[in-house]
C-alpha cells in the first residue's frame, strides 16, 4: 500500500476518524434509539448487536423495527430485504459518484471497505476528494470509527430500553417515527422539491389502505421518486 497513485495510509485513517467525530453525538442518539426500539420489538441483545454490526445502516434498521415480527416466513424475509434495498437505494448513487476514486485500488479492497460505506463516509470522502485528497484511508477510517461507536451505542440503547417495562407509556414506540419526521427538516429543499414527498405520502396512505403488508413504503417512495425524476426542474 501507499504507492503514489493509490495511497492508503494509517495517517489517512486517523484523519478520517477525526473528520467523522463531529457526527458522533447524532450517531450515538440514533444508535441508542435503534437499540431501545429493538428491545421494545423483542429482539435479543445478540440479534440487535448483530444487525448493527452487519447491516450498519441506521435508517434501514429503524424501518426494519417498524416491520419486525415475532414469526418469519420466507416471504416476509424477502419483503424485508426488498424494503431494505429500497431504503438504501441512495447508496447506489453515492457509490457510483466515488467510483473514479476507487477504480485505482484492487477490487478485493474495494469489496471489503464498501462494507463500511455510509452516508457519513460518503460526505467526508466526497469533500476530502474535492479538496484534492486521494488517500483511501480517510474514507475507511471514518467508516470504521463510526462502526465501532454505532455498535457500542446500539448495545447501550438495547440495555436501557429493556429497563422500560411499558415502552408505549413513555412514547418509546414513537422513537422511530419521531426521528423519521425530524429528518424531513435537514432534507428540506423548498416547497417545489417537497412535491415528490407529498405524492409518496399520499400514494403510501392509499396503498396501506388497499393492501396488507408493507408494500406501501416501496409503492409510495417509488411513486414520489418518479415524480421527482420527471418533473420539470427548470423553475
Amino acid at each position, binding site marked *: 500500500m501507499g504507492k503514489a497513485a493509490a495511497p492508503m495510509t494509517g495517517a489517512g485513517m486517523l484523519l478520517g476518524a477525526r473528520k467523522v467525530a463531529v457526527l458522533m453525538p447524532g450517531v450515538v442518539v440514533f444508535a441508542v434509539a435503534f437499540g431501545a426500539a429493538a428491545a421494545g420489538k423483542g429482539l435479543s441483545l445478540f440479534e440487535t448487536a448483530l444487525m448493527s454490526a452487519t447491516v450498519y445502516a441506521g435508517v434501514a434498521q429503524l424501518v426494519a423495527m417498524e416491520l419486525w415480527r415475532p414469526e418469519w416466513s420466507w416471504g416476509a424475509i424477502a419483503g424485508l430485504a426488498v424494503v431494505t*434495498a429500497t431504503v438504501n437505494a441512495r447508496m447506489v448513487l453515492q457509490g457510483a459518484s466515488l467510483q473514479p476514486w476507487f477504480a485505482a485500488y484492487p477490487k478485493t479492497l474495494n469489496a471489503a471497505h464498501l462494507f463500511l460505506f455510509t452516508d457519513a463516509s460518503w460526505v467526508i470522502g466526497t469533500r476530502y476528494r474535492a479538496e484534492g485528497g486521494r488517500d483511501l484511508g480517510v474514507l475507511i477510517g471514518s467508516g470504521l470509527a463510526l462502526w465501532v461507536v454505532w455498535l457500542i451505542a446500539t448495545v447501550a440503547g438495547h440495555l436501557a430500553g429493556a429497563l422500560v417495562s411499558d415502552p408505549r407509556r413513555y412514547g418509546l414506540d414513537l422513537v422511530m417515527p419521531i426521528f423519521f419526521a425530524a429528518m424531513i427538516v435537514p432534507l428540506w429543499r423548498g416547497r417545489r422539491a417537497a412535491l415528490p414527498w407529498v405524492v409518496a405520502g399520499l400514494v403510501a396512505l392509499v396503498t396501506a389502505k388497499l393492501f396488507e403488508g408493507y408494500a406501501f413504503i416501496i409503492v409510495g417512495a417509488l411513486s414520489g421518486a418518479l415524480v421527482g425524476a420527471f418533473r420539470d426542474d427548470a423553475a
Partner: protein
Amino acid sequence: MTLPDPGAWGAILAIAAMTVATYLCRISGVVLMGFIPLTPHVRRGLAALPGCIIAATVLPLIERLGPAAAVALLAAIGSMVLRRNELLALVVGMSAIAGLRALGF
C-alpha cells in the same frame, strides 16, 4: 421442493437478508457505474428518494397510531426547524406523546 420453515432462525435470517441487501446497495453503484449512464432524470429521482421514503413510511403510520402521534411528530418537526437538534426533537416528541397519553388521548 419446499424450503423448511425459517422457524427459530427467522430473526437471524431476516438480519442476514438485510445485510446482503444493504451490501448489494453499497457495491452495486460502484460496479454498475461503467454500464448505466446517470441521466438527469435518474439523478433527480434518486435525489428525491430519501424524503419520499420518509413520507411513505410516516404518513400511513400516523394514520394507524392516531392524532396524539400526529401532534407528537409535528412538535418534533417544529423543534427541529427551530433548533436543528435531533436529540432535542426526540425529547420534545416523546414528551408530547407521553403527556398526551397520560391525559388519556
